[in-house]
């Protein structure tokens, strides 16, 4: 018996002869009932809307328990959390399963199309609400598209875990937005294209240097505690570099994660274990802080409406194209399955808000928070139930 529907094809191990007792593998998922299911909380999903609303309620616009000074205390933690999320994506990126190239292509096309549709769709709204007369509306529209293109909350923990094709597309679908986000942030910081490229290259070089240091240490750690100390320090530095250079922490994490993924089993396992240990608190932190910091204005609401509408279109159209390109590997209703917005969109908006720190960034964060809540509600009504698990 499988808990997955027949049309959402399983993406399993590389050998057709390998058998997996899916009932046993997925038993923990199935056993997690009650509140966990009701809130949409599982190993790879979170009650995004609920946590964002909680953040808003606890923030300055609510009961002001999460005061501005308190959230500023959390400032250094946010890039580390984002970096850790990026690391998780990077660690799970390279996969030698059958059908992986097709899934990667489908994911790139789907996320790219959504990015484009949302960015173009929100241009008029951004231009309207952003009356300052400069060219910031373009960056704002592009950032909105980047946030809307992702659907991921958390990647699956084990790289050999059985997973549905839609899950894999969701995981691979964050790569393009993260890369585009890195370029955008570098551009915003540096001003000119060449300067942005140089800055991005510098940041990537430093991250690789740190990842190499982490790798050297993790391959010779003498105890689990030492491994943890080294893993934590590597994560702090990877997130910290992005923060110090006002770059994308998600991209820094992705780069480091890919580095560790390539260079051997042991560091990969150690880092994965330590990031998985803190992943849920990190997601909660990101969402609560995003909620508390969200600039809830009419302008952000206006952008959010466009965001929701164009993201729906983007995901459905992108889903259809991904299905066609998937050549039997991707299920027909993948677009519907990708409707829940996940955490990465909010994470990127928070990244922009932290790095750029201007009014456009606040507007973007507010819009993404509102749109994410709205999309989560829409997904509850429209998306297939398995998309929410």
């Amino acid at each position, binding site marked *: 018996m499988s808990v997955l529907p027949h049309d959402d094809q399983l993406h399993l191990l590389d050998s057709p002869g390998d058998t997996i007792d899916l009932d046993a593998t997925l038993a923990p998922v199935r056993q997690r009932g009650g509140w966990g299911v009701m809130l949409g909380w599982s190993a790879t999903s979170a009650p995004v809307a609920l946590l964002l609303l909680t953040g808003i309620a606890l923030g300055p616009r609510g009961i002001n328990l999460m005061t501005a000074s*308190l959230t*500023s*205390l959390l*400032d*250094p*933690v946010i*890039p*580390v959390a984002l970096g850790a999320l990026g690391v998780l994506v990077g660690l799970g990126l390279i996969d030698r399963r059958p059908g992986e190239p097709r899934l990667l292509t489908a994911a790139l096309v789907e996320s790219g199309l959504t990015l484009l549709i949302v960015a173009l769709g929100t241009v008029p709204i951004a231009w309207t609400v952003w009356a300052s007369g400069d060219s910031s509306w373009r960056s704002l529209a592009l950032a909105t598209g980047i946030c809307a293109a992702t659907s991921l909350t958390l990647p699956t923990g084990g790289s050999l875990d059985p997973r549905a094709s839609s899950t894999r597309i969701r995981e691979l679908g964050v790569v393009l937005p993260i890369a585009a986000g890195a370029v955008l942030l570098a551009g915003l910081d540096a001003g000119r294209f060449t300067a942005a490229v140089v*800055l991005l290259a*510098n*940041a990537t*070089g*430093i991250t690789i*240097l*740190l990842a*190499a*240091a*982490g790798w*050297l*240490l993790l*391959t*010779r750690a*003498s*105890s*689990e*505690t*030492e491994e*943890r*100390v*080294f893993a*934590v*320090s*590597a*994560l*702090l*530095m*990877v*997130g*910290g*570099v992005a*923060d*110090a*250079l*006002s770059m994308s922490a998600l991209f820094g994490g992705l780069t480091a994660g890919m580095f560790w993924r390539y260079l051997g089993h042991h560091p990969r396992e150690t880092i994965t274990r330590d990031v998985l*240990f*803190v992943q*849920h*608190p990190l997601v909660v932190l990101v969402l609560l802080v995003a909620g508390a910091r969200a600039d809830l204005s009419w302008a952000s609401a206006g952008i959010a409406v466009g965001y929701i509408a164009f993201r729906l279109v983007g995901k459905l159209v992108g889903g259809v194209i991904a299905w066609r390109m998937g050549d039997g590997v991707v299920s027909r209703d993948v677009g519907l399955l990708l409707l829940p917005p996940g955490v990465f969109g909010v994470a990127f908006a928070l990244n922009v808000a932290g790095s750029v720190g201007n009014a456009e960034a606040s507007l973007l964060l507010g819009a993404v928070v509102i749109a994410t809540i709205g999309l989560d509600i829409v997904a509850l009504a429209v998306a297939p139930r398995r998309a929410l698990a």
Partner: protein
Amino acid sequence: MRRLLALALAVGAMAWVREVGVPSASGTSVTAIALGFALLGASITGDALRQFQLPRLTGYLLFGIIVGPHVANLITESMAAQLQIVTGIATTLIAFIAGLTLSVDRLGSRLIGIARMTLVTLGVAMLGLAATLWIAWPWLPIAPEASGAERLVMMVLLAVMVVSFSPTMTAAVVADSGARGRLSDTILAMVVLADLIVLVLFSVSMQVARVVLGTGQSPAGEAFVRLSWEIGGAVAFGVLIGVLFALYLRYIGREISLVLLAVCAMLTQIGTTQQLQPLLAALAAGIVIENLAVAQGDSLRAAVRRGAPPVLVVFFAAVGASLRIDALAVIGIAALALAAVRLGFIRVGLRAGVRLAGLPESIGEHAWTGLVSQAGITLGFASVVATTFPGWGNQVQLLLVALIAIHELVGPAWFRRGLAQAGELDARAPRPLVVVSNREPYLHNDDGQGSIAVTAATGGVAVALDALMRERGGVWIAHGAGSADQLVVNAFDKVRVPPESPAYDLRRLWIEEPTFSAYYGGFANEGLWPLCHVVDVRPKFRTEDWAAYQDVNARFAAAIHQEIGASDVPVFIQDYHLALVAPALRALRPDTRTALFWHIPWPNPDRLRICPWRGEILAGLLANDLIAFQLERDRRNFLMAAEEELQAEIEIEASRVRLAGHTATVVSVPIGVDFDRIQGFAADPGLIEEQQRLRTLLNLRAEIVGLGVDRLDYTKGIPERLDALDALMIRRPELRGRMTFVQIGVPSRSDLESYSAIEAEIDLRIAELNARHAVRGGSPVVTYYTTPLSAFSLAALYRLAHFCIVSSLHDGMNLVAKEFVAARDDERGVLVLSALAGAAQELEDAVIINPYDADAFAGALARAIDMPADEQARRMRAMRKVVAGRNVFNWASDILEGLESLWTKPLLYSVRGWEETSV
């Protein structure tokens, strides 16, 4: 080398970051990178310094100083300021962990003595310092113009702060050096108690200072209210947090490390904003959990071990980065003088305190070395004073920072030296141990030709404990069973062993007949053994056997009491023969630390009811501090029995049983084999020759060889094994003459009826089996050999066999299964293992059988014979991983570590986390 290269890369990355963008970065944007760099660099430096026998934390501090703003400036001023975020959480965490140290139950009667010593030391040191400061005030660079009441309050405040200690530094040095003993225990408890008192005194002095110096413009009444709030409110808040945290641990218990850090952050934040003493609140929370929520304490300690090390490494590095070496130049002479005066008065106070508390003089001699260090709490005081009283407060802060710099540089090294001089460092002083067992590790026997031969026990447990004793020294007390044992002992019935390089004493106990037979053959082997093994043999319980058992156990206890004298060496008691040693010993020496390992299964409560003296046995075992079983199943059965039979108080989560005011911890620690030694045999070039010799000895001509190695015991399922071989030969007649099963069966306890019966039955069954399936010119089905073989010969046989059968009807573990696996580094051979042997719980890749199901058993044998080489290799590889990961030395040290950690202060957990490999 890799670490240094990694550090170089990190330094390069930091320089690159600064080159590219940090100068323009805002304050908080550099926090994460500063934290990461401090953590990584300090860890590597600490580890590097360890190679030079220096404490790791000196390395953390040095790293902070070197990369800090005052030297290399890799961590800039703003980065160093950002690191202080961790300082607040870390000092609260330290106070919290310190609270976890204060277990009234554990410190017991010593608590009063330590409290007395602490009070006297603090009193003398503070009064002495205050007097000195009063006299020297005009020359101190603080506020020379102050006079009268103003000068008095400043002076009192300074005296309180200057005397304060550092629990973390003290604990870190103890953990770092692996010190164990009364001195380290006493100092740890003392610094925590002292800090509790200093915290209260600081709050009081601050309030008085605010009134006198008019900072808060609050009248005396209001100040009293504020003081009550600051102290009482902090304690109440801490208690509340402690209770809530305990409830969280009990009912949710997830991600405890993170919640712990969040709680510390909350205590810091709320404490600061609400004018509560956060350190006092944290201390109170820790004490509440340790003393009221005992069951949750262990999971919290595990979380501390997991979450605290990174925070504390950063803390030390941050302290290092904030230490202003230049401050020494400005205020150096005053700080040096103050440090000398502080130390002098602490020594005077300690001497008086030790005398008044009635503690050993040796403690007073070295304890001062543990009271030199100062760190987070003192720094916290300094910053509070500087914030509250700008002006002279800043001068005080500067003075204290200089003092801390001095104390941090010399404190850890001095304390380490003090511990070494007190003989508590593992490198210099072995930690002796008392092992008690029925069987002795070395037997002296008359060889019949007028000389005495020494025979060493070859069992895995005996070898492991012998190795441990060689390393640690001490006394092994056992029944002298060798024919020449009495000839070689001295007047105290002792002989130094091992004969080739004496390292410890073997104390022999002489147990005369018929007492020995009643104790050993009767109660232990005709009563307890069948009681604990679910087999078809009825236990026999006779009153005279019970009396002998009690008597012999009491004699063992008296011998232990004689041997340990006034020392506090731990006692390791071996097996079911000695269940009543602990209560008898406790009657003589209530504070002795004992651990007992019960090697055989523990029966379920229904079966236990067969024993008329089950209550006494249970209570006897519960008089130990640590009781270890082989399997989880046995541990659970024991806990159920303790609850049902004695109505003992059980803490399920912590696996602790409380009976008559004593708490015993119950654990399962599966025993292993000496993996390396067996591997060594397997790789010995002489192995082939030995195999040839065995082939000749056992007349092995068959192409397929099976193997069984057992003590002849009814629990081993040998008749069932023969039934399965019979069924196999019927099912696969082509194996007749081609396959031989070698049964090594060493007779034991043959004087007992049940044992002689099983020996006779096996003889008969083998003869019948060989006759039934005999093939002219072919090999017999079973070759039976009853002479014990050496470990090397056994390894040779293991390597010869195509399969090995362990078919126990019930077995605590069965080491033959693990030995077979350890010997097969060729990754060949199949282990056929009874599901009813404890080893089956670990060796899941064996071919598991039910010895009672002869047909299925025969089928499993056929499968073993036909198993393809790649499947054999896959299974063997998996099993070898398990066996290598739990060798017998780990087993022994796990139990001892478990026993010693019951006394280890929780504060050590926080720093021991990253010392696992070195302590």
